[in-house]
């Protein structure tokens, strides 16, 4: 629970003291709403992860919605083709901020075995990816691990500073710089910068 600590007990009851950042992050990381973009066999493992045996609701991320407007976690599960890339990017654009992306499986991480004209060689060339999950397909527990890693990453964000730092909506729309190279590094975007970093301001 981070630094959510009970401070003082009075006769009226108890209260907690924390930083707003921590409170917001605590709320966000424990109620991720995944948008399942099941493109191939990884989608089946994703369903298994949401189902009762692996039960992602233990980590608060079971509310999968099929409308991007209601989601904040895009799980790209499977082989993304260039023909589908426009649709995937549109889904990402339709998700409200803040939003995160998991590239599930080798196909979405790097193109995998599809070293081909039809397949996007890593979805990081069109989307800002937060966590990569290896495996073909990855086991559901590997994806749960990715969600836990994402929760750790959310803990380190500074939502209040971002708000007060005067970032505009255009700043918050996700990756502005796209890499073209197959297997290229994740682009450094305004979204990734600390809001006090002058490069993050417009």
């Amino acid at each position: 629970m981070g630094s959510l600590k009970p401070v003082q007990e009075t006769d009226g009851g108890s209260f907690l003291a924390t930083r707003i950042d921590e409170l917001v992050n605590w709320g966000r990381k424990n109620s991720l709403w995944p948008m399942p973009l099941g493109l191939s066999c990884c989608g089946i493992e994703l369903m298994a992860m949401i189902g009762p045996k692996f039960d992602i609701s233990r980590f608060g991320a079971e509310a999968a919605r099929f409308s991007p407007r209601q989601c904040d976690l895009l799980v790209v599960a499977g082989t993304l083709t260039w023909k589908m890339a426009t649709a995937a990017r549109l889904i990402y654009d339709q998700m409200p901020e803040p939003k995160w992306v998991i590239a599930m499986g080798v196909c979405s991480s790097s193109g995998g075995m599809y070293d081909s004209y039809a397949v996007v060689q890593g979805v990081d060339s069109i989307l800002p990816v937060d966590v990569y999950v290896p495996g073909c397909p990855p086991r559901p527990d590997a994806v749960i691990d990715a969600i836990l890693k994402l929760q750790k990453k959310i803990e380190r964000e500074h939502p209040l500073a971002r708000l007060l730092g005067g970032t505009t909506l255009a700043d918050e729309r996700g990756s502005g710089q796209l890499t073209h190279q197959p297997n290229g590094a994740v682009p450094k975007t305004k979204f990734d910068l600390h809001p006090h970093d002058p490069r993050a301001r417009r």
Partner: protein
Amino acid sequence: MGNAQTLERARAALGTLEHSVRDERDGLATLALSTATLGQALEALKTRAGFETPTLITAIDWLGTREPRFDVVHQLLSLAHNDRLRLVTPVAEDQRVPTATHLWPGAAYMERECYDMFGLVFEGHAGLKRLLMPEEYGWHPLRKDFPHQGIEPDRIYREWDRKRRAEWHPEEAR
């Protein structure tokens, strides 16, 4: 049900249409035709030899091996006689192939895929457009001179992305 009977029935149906028998390594009864006779041959085989179903319509690219460059391959199945027949038609790059869609509506998809992958135009096909690749994609991926990693596979996405950004964030237009 042997090949000899199949060929005999098929050749009887073809009558005076010009064709030749081919020896195929896999043992399937095979006839070689030309683009001029293919249309009539398909109709004759359907109506008179009982081949009700086209199971496969595809092409082979013989780039650098021989001229004309392509072979269009039709494989037909007769459910009544339980046998199959293959038709091989050499086609040059700029030549048109007669369609089979007026005989078998199901051939439309296979001919569209063939057009998409090899760039062969089927004469008389009502909706000949690409099946798998985006419509604006300028190349035909199963041709032998197409590199397997593709030619500008991301071009259409990039164009779309540039347009989208210019529309949504005009202040960032470069």
